[in-house]
């Protein structure tokens, strides 16, 4: 009895919390189907649904290419960063490679405002012909995302996981096989969470893309900032573009369900 009351209370709090998160987003959704005049009308009035904003962001602005570029860069960054982060975190957790100094070094590179580093990187890229390329953007994003993912994953390599790894080693696995056949699947919740954050960080990164990209490789944040013009914010277009921006979450949903919600039962350990 007491348990079910607790459950209901939990859901109640979660519903309120979800509402706080989602109501502003629904208001954005609503504004994406109206024009600026109606978006700002107080008290709000019902207005006929129009799709002009969605058409305009693709006809007047190259949002299709912003989307593709964002996907390529964020996906590329995540795919490359994740294994590297998993490897270095393993080395930190298991062998304490490089000691505290290396860990602190890795993190301290991220404590400097990106504005300061991006200009020298611009000069390097200029001479290497990396400006306005996917590769250049992905490399830049890896450097600012990798340290965080590495740190995040250290704590997921628990003693239990190393024990199972030991079993694999005595079963005849090489160090590397034990790492990717056993350890990586076992830290899947951590990897998914890290991958998600890596993707999000790259998806939203602004300064590096601004300086290092060009027309061909500009990502969504640049496109979105375009809508804040000197003649005012194109709020209806912005609402439409934002609505599309959060769509990738739908793609991520099955992964979330599989790895994060259930968690990985390590019940077989004991």
């Amino acid at each position: 009895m007491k348990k079910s009351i607790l459950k209901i209370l939990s859901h109640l709090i979660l519903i309120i919390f979800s509402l706080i998160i989602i109501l502003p987003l629904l208001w954005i959704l609503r504004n994406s189907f109206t024009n600026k005049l109606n978006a700002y009308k107080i008290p709000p009035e019902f207005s006929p649904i129009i799709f002009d904003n969605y058409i305009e962001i693709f006809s007047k602005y190259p949002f299709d290419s912003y989307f593709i570029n964002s996907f390529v860069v964020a996906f590329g960054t995540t795919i490359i960063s994740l294994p590297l982060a998993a490897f270095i975190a393993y080395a930190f957790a298991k062998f304490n490679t490089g000691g505290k100094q290396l860990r602190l070094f890795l993190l301290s590179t991220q404590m400097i405002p990106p504005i300061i580093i991006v200009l020298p990187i611009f000069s390097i890229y200029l001479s290497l012909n990396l400006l306005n390329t996917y590769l250049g953007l992905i490399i830049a994003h890896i450097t600012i995302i990798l340290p965080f993912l590495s740190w995040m994953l250290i704590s997921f390599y628990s003693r239990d996981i190393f024990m199972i790894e030991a079993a694999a080693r005595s079963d005849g696995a090489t160090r590397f096989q034990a790492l990717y056949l056993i350890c990586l699947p076992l830290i899947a919740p951590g990897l998914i969470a890290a991958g998600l954050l890596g993707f999000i960080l790259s998806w939203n990164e602004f300064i590096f893309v601004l300086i290092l990209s060009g027309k061909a490789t500009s990502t969504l944040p640049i496109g979105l900032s375009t809508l804040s013009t000197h003649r005012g914010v194109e709020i209806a277009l912005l609402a439409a573009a934002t609505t599309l921006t959060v769509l990738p979450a739908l793609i991520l949903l099955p992964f979330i369900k599989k790895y994060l919600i259930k968690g990985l039962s390590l019940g077989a350990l004991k």
Partner: protein
Amino acid sequence: MSNNLDLSDRRFGYILTAPTVLIITLVILFPICFSLISSFFDYTLINKSFNDFIGIDNYINSFKDEQLFNSIFVTIYFVILVVLLEFILGFFIALLLNSITRFKSIYYFILLLPLLINPIVVGLIWRMFLHPQLGIFNYLLSLINIEPVNWLGDPQMAFITIIFVDIWHQVSFMIILLLAGLSAIPKEPYEAAKSDGANIYECFIHITLPYMRPVIVVTILIRLIFAIKTYDLVYIMTKGGPGDSTDLISYYIYRSAFISLNLGEAAAMSLILLVIIIIITIPLFKYMNRLD
């Protein structure tokens, strides 16, 4: 004396570490050294040369700069409040999410959404919502007879508003990390504790917290660094105002680099900032090492 196996263990560690360290070093170390050097010169984008060595003048100027100190204090308040509130709220929500089984993915999906929205957009849309006359917030408040709130036009209120919007936007970051940590805790200790008659609170103190400690420390550490680097939100929402009530240090440095084009001074301020961050994070870092 170490034997071959120790050696090959260590070698394996180096092999796994090398790619990351290499990339980071190649891409970031040069810019950092560059800015370190430029901080000792009158190095501006207008006059890009290392001709005018001025020693530590940039640092002295920074220390004399009242605005900079104001920014540092504003940033410290901001970071502490944001990280603390987001952590408490995030941990609470993560625990709730971890305890339920139904509709979990729906909640999760919802809280993921704000993270996918660019901070610039977050700033713009919230500025619209919080418009004193034309925003939906004050309209809703007016329905229950509350006077229009001056969300961004009043120094104290603007600071609170920025913090609120940041929490709205970023609290999910905490939730995702903490929930991942929670889902990696084995179930057995809880079952054992419950059979020993422990209540929820005792389970939390004696099982959840100890298991979660490393994840908590890392989460706070990472969030702390991100919070210190926040600039887009104030750039969009307040431009650091009214007055200089929301003038975060990263935005200050941004202006010094891109508006004043004074890279040498911006670099000096960045390095001062770096030292401050390290001073703040080292206790956390030490604490974490003690856990191993």
